[in-house]
């Protein structure tokens, strides 16, 4: 069985072909390949250990199917998630509308889930400014409104990718302390976190 113990669940949300899988692929394997590549069996689930200060946090990164036909099921995916990276394509305004939809869903259903707004394919926009359909400041405003972090990344060049995931891990690390101290609810997810926290402590 999967031997790797995972500390936090991170879901990737976003419309089809915004580059969720590429983002993960870039981050985990440090590559962006256009043509056929076959070193990994699948990029749908990845467990990635990240150094945060003294500790190592393992993020379980869940890729999700972005197609609209599975929209009704997306709630099953982000149940218990600690963080959600909501992706949109900088060159596709409809993908940003979809991102808004997911943000709303998350706010309704998973209040403990931190949201990271991520504009992808930054390399395309910096090459040709006319391609940009989502203004940086619009997205930034929206992020502030919902209390989310905002990143613009490029999986092709690797720009901002590591920073995004590092931030996710750091935020998880600091929030783990909070949950530890204010454990009042009987939510199973929270209990589990205290469990993981304490084991890290023993190490």
């Amino acid at each position: 069985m999967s031997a790797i113990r995972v500390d936090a669940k991170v879901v990737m949300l976003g419309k089809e072909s915004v580059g969720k899988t590429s983002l993960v692929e870039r981050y985990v394997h440090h590559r962006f390949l256009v043509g056929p590549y076959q070193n990994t069996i699948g990029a749908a689930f990845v467990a990635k250990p990240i150094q945060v200060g003294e500790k190592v946090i393992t993020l379980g990164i869940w890729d999700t199917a972005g197609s609209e036909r599975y929209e009704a099921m997306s709630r099953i995916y982000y149940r218990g998630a600690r963080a959600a990276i909501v992706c949109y394509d900088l060159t596709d305004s409809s993908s940003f509308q979809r991102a808004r939809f997911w943000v709303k869903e998350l706010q309704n259903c998973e209040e403990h889930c931190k949201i990271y707004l991520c504009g992808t394919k930054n390399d395309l926009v910096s090459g040709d400014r006319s391609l940009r359909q989502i203004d940086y400041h619009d997205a930034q405003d929206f992020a502030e409104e919902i209390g989310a972090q905002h990143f613009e990344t490029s999986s092709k060049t690797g720009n901002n990718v590591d920073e995004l995931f590092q931030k996710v891990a750091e935020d998880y690390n600091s929030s783990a302390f909070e949950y530890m101290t204010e454990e009042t609810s009987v939510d199973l997810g929270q209990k589990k976190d205290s469990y993981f926290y304490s084991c890290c402590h023993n190490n």
Partner: protein
Amino acid sequence: MSQRTERRGIHVDQSDLLCKKGCGYYGNAAWQGLCSKCWREEYQRVRQKQIQDDWALAEKLQREEEAAYASSHGAQTQSHTQSTAPQTHPGHTSLGPFSKFEEKKTNEKTRKVTTVKKFFSPSSRTAPKKETQEVRTTSPSLSRHASFETDQVSKDFVDFLKNLQKPGREIHKQCRAFIVNMSGKKDLGADELSECVQDFYQSMADRLMSHYKGSSESVEQVMDQVEKYIMTRLYKSVFCPETTDDEKKDLATQKRIRALHWVTIQMLCVSMDEEIPEVSENVVKAITDIIEMDSKRVPRDKLGCITRCSKHIFSAIRITKNEPASADDFLPALIYIVLKANPPRLQSNIQYITRFCNPSRLMTGEDGYYFTNLCCAAAFIEKLDAQSLNLSPEEFERYMSGQASPRINSSDADWPGAGQTPDVVATNPVLAQLNHNLELLSSLNSRQETVMEAAQSLQADLLSWPQAVKREVQEILEKYPLQILPRTVSAIDANNMDNENLPPPLTPQVFAG
């Protein structure tokens, strides 16, 4: 017995009405034809014997129990059996010392018992025995069903804990206590049961962490064993319990999947090409794995089946697409596999895993990911409609009602769906495989015929060969008939006339030196 009373209504025989013991009083059918006095005596006698038998049986079982478990946890088992034994004992013995004072009170009760009993078993001995057995099975130390699997798991668990010495004993004690506790809670709803188990996992993990200072890996290991042990023992009572409608959902899902048999790989936009033999091999393996899930008892093993199934799907997609599969490829493929496999008791299994799996595994890890996808697949299938298959509602209706099938339609251009699935027949992997197999079979057939012909000619050759040899021998014999000539030569010297003219034979000479 009831038949007898009926018959008596038609033809009443005076002797039938009297007590069968012949004491002169009237008997009663409810007392097996005895009068009240004789019945009481008779009943007590049988009852006493029964109690004795039961006790003998109980002691025998207890001895076996102790013998089997003495090595690992003798002290506990004994304390259990001893504590349970007195519970069954007083129930029976209160009937034993039968003072006349008590007689009236209990009489009513016993009669009720026996009349009910009578309907089920004519010999009043077997029924109570069963009762006591039932009592025994609910008693903790004996709740072990005779199943081999459970025994094996218990043994493994004990073996595993032996390595842990003192904490191991403690863990075992707690697990047993928990199982005992759970067996008393059979009437609770599934959610409460789930909560009990989850609480137990949690407190066990906490204890291991704080008391025994285990590393996270070893705690995980112990927890896996604990889960395996507990859930194997509880499986029968908590899987698809009667208090829930799991079974109904199972049937609904099964029916639904059957009704969706016509869904093709193209409709789901699955990127798997089953014509590639390697891919279809993986598909078959994935289907086998997902079906196998139902046969496992431990939630973790069930998850393992799902994970294996998913890995096969990933391989299949990778072979087809030549690149790693993303969730966009994986989920449709999983849906397709579930539709093809129609795994038994899918909903029950999902519910069971959700309720009783160790949450740390379920919520975050890789197994959890695949399980979540399976939940999605099940949800998708449940809600599947025309839109989710890119079909028009009419088409969907037609397919669902069985009036049309995308595979047959495709040749018929009049159907609106024909345009979307024109090459289904050509690409249908099953048909292709079938044709391929037929070809193989026919070539095999012809080859076999050749072999048969060759064999027959060989047989004919073999049969004719000895004849030919015989004939040849005969010919030669005829050609050169055997002539036995008179023996003329006897001695070489006899013929030699010039013997005297020959020089004398050489004599050996000795040379000196």
